């Protein structure tokens, strides 16, 4: 038992950067002004979107350049159901996730066997079709290029309403935090391993007993579901949605988050999201050179750190022998 306690303390000690990170993030809104709180809210949105794309692109290695399409589905489902039927946002949070996931399942089922760049092209098409459809106001529900206005704040009854920047900041970062815990658990499960196997070698994965097709679909559905949640939060924060928020360029930005941060690496994704959302704000003065710097950084990254800023470190699963610990080994 004593030994066990020792290892627990050590474990807690090993987690100090995470704990520090959480503390800094929770006192942050009290030391910065409202503008930066908003910037950090969007950092949170990008982090959530990056994590959702990371499932598809980072874990399974599927090129998805239409990820904003899934977010758009989530945002519009929230907007339309809330403004037309008055359904509370909190209830719409899971509904928008399910809607985006179901959409991903329907759209990706026929294209899931495509490899690499072929899949990439099709997903670009998919994202654009979603955006153009929303833009053309089908059945008069999406409001065309103007979008949908007057979305409520998330609330639990009347006593807990997320109605200012600081509350929104906590709202998004709690969602991101919960998502990270779930995704870390997934990474260390047979599901996460199966995804990585598919990324490494599809034929070998199939021969190892992994149903490649359904695991790829699972990744798309989960990724889309998370993007749908991001869409929901985004819609309630802005109180409106319009098709231009979900352009192809935004999908590219998400792609960059995963590539800059490190494929399959959760801390990497946070860094990538910070790079995409914070640096343009920090370097406002050089706004016109932003894309130039951005392009240069991408090129330099690909040459010197092709694995991303913080690639996933593997191998720390279990160092000591399980058999010796449980006393099952004979010799």
């Amino acid at each position: 038992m004593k030994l066990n306690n020792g290892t627990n303390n050590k474990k807690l000690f090993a987690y100090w950067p995470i704990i520090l990170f959480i503390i800094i993030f929770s006192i942050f809104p009290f030391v910065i002004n409202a503008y930066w709180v908003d910037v950090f809210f969007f950092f949170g949105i990008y982090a959530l979107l990056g994590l959702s794309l990371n499932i598809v692109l980072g874990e399974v290695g599927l090129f998805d350049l239409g990820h904003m399409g899934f977010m758009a589905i989530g945002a519009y489902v929230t907007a339309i159901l809330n403004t037309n039927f008055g359904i509370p946002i909190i209830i719409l949070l899971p509904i928008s996730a399910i809607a985006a996931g179901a959409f991903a399942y329907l759209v990706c089922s026929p294209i899931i066997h495509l490899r690499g760049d072929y899949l990439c092209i099709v997903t670009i098409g998919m994202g654009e079709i979603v955006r153009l459809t929303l833009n053309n106001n089908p059945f008069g529900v999406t409001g065309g290029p103007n979008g949908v206005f007057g979305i409520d704040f998330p609330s639990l009854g009347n006593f807990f309403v997320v109605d200012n920047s600081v509350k929104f900041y906590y709202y998004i970062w709690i969602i991101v935090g919960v998502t990270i815990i779930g995704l870390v658990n997934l990474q260390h499960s047979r599901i996460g391993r199966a995804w990585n196997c598919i990324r490494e070698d599809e034929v070998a994965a199939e021969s190892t007993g992994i149903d490649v097709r359904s695991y790829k679909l699972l990744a798309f559905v989960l990724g889309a579901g998370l993007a749908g949640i991001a869409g929901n939060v985004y819609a309630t924060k802005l109180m409106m949605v319009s098709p231009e928020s979900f352009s192809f360029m935004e999908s590219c930005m998400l792609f960059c988050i995963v590539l800059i941060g490190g494929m399959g690496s959760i801390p990497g994704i946070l860094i990538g999201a910070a790079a995409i959302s914070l640096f343009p704000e920090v370097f406002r003065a050089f706004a016109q050179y932003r894309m130039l710097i951005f392009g240069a950084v991408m090129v330099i990254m690909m040459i010197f750190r092709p694995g991303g800023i913080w690639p996933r470190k593997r191998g720390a699963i279990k160092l000591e022998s399980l058999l010796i610990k449980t006393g099952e080994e004979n010799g």
Partner: protein
Amino acid sequence: MAKDNNNVETMIRSEQENKETDKINKVVLETDKLTKKFGGLIAVNNFDLKVNQGEISSLIGPNGAGKTTVFNVVTGIYKADGGKVLFKGKDLAGKKPHQIIKKGIARTFQNIRLFSNMTCLENVMSGQHCRSREGTWSSVLQTPKQRKEELKIKKNAENRLKQVGLWRWRNELAKNIAYGNQRMLEIGRALASNPDLLILDEPSSGLNDKESEDLIIFLKSLLKENLTILLIEHDMNVVMGISHWVTVMDEGKKIAEGLPEEVYSNSQVIEAYLGKDEEEEE
């Protein structure tokens, strides 16, 4: 060294003869008039193969004879154009590779196909995918059942890694370990699925003499686990050293089968490997 092999070979033979007197060997894997075409090329032509339970069977033949194609059809990577594959008496037609491994046929590849950016331990843990069943939500929430299964997977993986002698490399990425070790890791990954039949595609290619000798000893030790082994092999020392039964293939057809030295002295086999005498004289 050849003498040693001969000794071992006669030992196996005598063992096998004993077994034959005891009981009639049960057929685990059987192909019946198997045919596979690639466009106009008939890669496998009415091929019959029998693999007996608890034995090491070899499939040999010159390059391009269609051996690997047979393996790929058996493991579901290719679809047969004709004929049947029977595993324990059941037809495997239309089954996908991940379903076939669940039925108990695990395989390795000619050019090693590991999950190179994953650790050795993770590779072997992945091998147990078809023997575990916890789903997405239990993994996200880490339910007690899921933790228990995960622990079981780790323990099995540890056992298998020790069995193939790679425990010390457990946290090394698969791409970083030596070539011979990579071969063993691939076998370990296949074994992790607790197969009844292990199909090895040229396990000794790229290994030095010492390593392939170790491999022979290792494969023989596997027979104790009630495992059946089918292998494609080029190295005649390995084939003659461990096979109970040899099937020879050339241009998609079976040209001979029998005990190792029967096959070794078969004129048709020598012809297929070395070319015809007449041609040489011309």
